């Protein structure tokens, strides 16, 4: 396989949900013509950020082949994965792209021992032939997340801490030697004191194993801390995308600004002063014509109500806002 081929190319992917019914009811565009690429030769951590209900998880599930897109395609290593039908192909794809979920306590069946998932992954993806050989593979995976098989073997999820569980989840995902991890809010349920250990783990994986990560969060602080690039989502649209330092240090889109301002800073020096606006009914915002942010935007213009803004490139990053149309 050519090296400079893209690892992942998301091309105009759109996902519509019907809420209501077949004849009537509303269509909610949870993801609207998203596109971005990830390079194959340069592993990176790519963050998807946005408030609740902005379509991050939907996009993640689309990439994971967990949902079928309404439109657009997702090309993984040159293959369009949205058209996969056969189980064999699906298994091949799943081997390369693995998820990490939000709630470590939920990620494993509470009635089953945790190690079963590790062995299952090793066996089902053909990493090993028999359970005997699996021990080593599993142990190695656990070691790469700072645990060992000894600590994990035979234990139930409730016997392990959230941080441990999340690390086991990562270890499980690593067993099939994937090239892309998709982590949907992997630390939002993990204690602040353990949070950094998981986040650091991703950084580690990228550096030492060459694994790319799509990191989904609304915690801009950790996003800033680990990621290389960031995309800000607003009601299904990627409204700003670029290098994380650039986007978060000087946000351009009013929405990015709002997001940034809402993040509580862990210091008493800059306490919040002025009030912020936030949305009352998210479905209403989805249904808006034009820019979805008009209801809350301090710099709203007439044109914003009429038509979707285009992608504008400003200083090497993408912004979807009429404020930057002339440039």
């Amino acid at each position, binding site marked *: 396989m050519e090296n400079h081929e893209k690892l992942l190319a998301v091309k105009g992917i759109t996902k519509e949900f019907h809420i209501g019914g077949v004849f009537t009811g509303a269509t909610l565009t949870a993801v609207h013509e998203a596109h971005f690429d990830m390079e194959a030769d340069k592993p990176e951590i790519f963050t998807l950020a946005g408030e*609740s209900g902005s379509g991050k998880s939907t996009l993640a599930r689309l990439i994971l082949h967990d949902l079928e897109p309404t439109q657009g395609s997702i090309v993984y290593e040159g293959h369009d994965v949205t058209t996969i039908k056969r189980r064999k192909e699906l298994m091949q794809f799943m081997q390369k792209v693995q998820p990490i979920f939000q709630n470590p306590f939920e990620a494993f069946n509470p009635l089953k021992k945790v190690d079963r998932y590790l062995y299952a992954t090793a066996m089902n993806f053909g990493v090993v032939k028999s359970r005997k050989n699996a021990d080593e593979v599993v142990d190695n995976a656990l070691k790469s997340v700072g645990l060992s098989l000894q600590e994990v073997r035979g234990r139930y999820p409730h016997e392990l801490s959230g941080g441990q569980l999340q690390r086991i989840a990562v270890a499980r995902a690593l067993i099939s030697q994937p090239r892309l991890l998709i982590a949907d809010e992997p630390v939002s349920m993990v204690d*602040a*004191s353990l949070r950094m250990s998981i986040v650091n783990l991703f950084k580690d994986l990228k550096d030492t194993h060459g694994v790319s990560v799509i990191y989904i969060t609304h915690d801009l602080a950790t996003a800033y801390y680990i990621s290389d690039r960031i995309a800000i989502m607003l009601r299904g649209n990627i409204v700003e995308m670029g290098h994380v330092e650039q986007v978060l240090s000087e946000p351009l889109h009013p929405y990015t600004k709002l997001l940034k301002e809402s993040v*509580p800073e862990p210091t*008493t020096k800059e306490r919040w002063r002025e009030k912020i606006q936030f949305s*009352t009914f998210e479905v209403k915002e989805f249904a808006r014509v034009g820019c979805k942010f008009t209801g809350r935007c301090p710099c709203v213009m007439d044109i914003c109500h009429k038509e979707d803004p285009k992608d504008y490139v400003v200083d090497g990053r993408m912004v979807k806002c009429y404020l930057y149309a002339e440039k």
Partner: protein
Amino acid sequence: MGVLNVKELKAYYKTDIYGVSRTVQAVDGISLEIHENEIFGIAGESSCGKTTLIKALSGTIRPPLTVMGGEVVYNFEDRSVNILSLRPDELRKISWEKISYILQGSMSVLNPVRKIHKTFYDFFEAHRKIENQQDFMKQMRDHLGKLGLPADVLKSYPHQLSGGMRQRVTIALATIFKPNVIIADEPTTALDVVVQRGVLQLLREIQQEQKNTVILVTHDMAVHANIADRVGIMYAGRIVEDAQVDDIFENPIHPYTKHLINSLPMIGDKSYKGSIPGAPPNLADPPKGCRFHPRCPYVMGICREEVPPMVNVESERGPRRVACFQISKEGDNGKS
């Protein structure tokens, strides 16, 4: 004398199932003084006993939770009560009018099949007589108006409101009687940053307007930094440090607090942030001595044997206490 004095409170979960008995020492010897007109933050990792402490403070002790000792005394204008020794009807009288609660999970806290105004009615009517339905509705609309909430939420069902809205409704609900003390347990966990900010803002405003005391529990240190006046750090069922919020963030003393503060990421800061090694102890079988000692980089012999006492530490910003032998020994040394 603060509005709330907690003395040597011990509350354990005692379970006995199929012959396996367990005692979870979820709150183990906590003393606290909380003042009028302040926001007191309680921080700590998951399952360190925050919710249990709140349960004890609010007097909602139900098996398997049992109070093993200590007292929780509220000092209101007219009288002082130990909430743990009240009869149920007395407790019912002061709860909500004097002490009210905001819980996490606004969806589950409101009756899903009851319109909001009915819930307001139920809660109000449990304490005051309602003479006139119209007057009552007007009163509630005013109340919501003051909190910047649209009056038509009263006519909605909980599921028709967004998460942030619901959480704000529960705040309005908790403040209808302008209670002296508002206890909020993780009111913003699971909300996204934008909504979280709105909710906290509202809480702050109410506090400033009604001049009451807010006890705010959250594990998010950044939230405390932005809203609390004073913060108590809990670790494994005990308070290890309590101080003015600036002291905590600028000059943490307890090794656990230090770790907590140092591990917080910030936008604009890409320097390496580690986390505390190890895991919090199992409260059913906590380590002897200082419960933090297995993870403490400064551990000493005594830490393994004895429980460090809470000692006062000088600070120009206000009262400050910490439970660490590093400090108490220094203090002892100073005294002698």
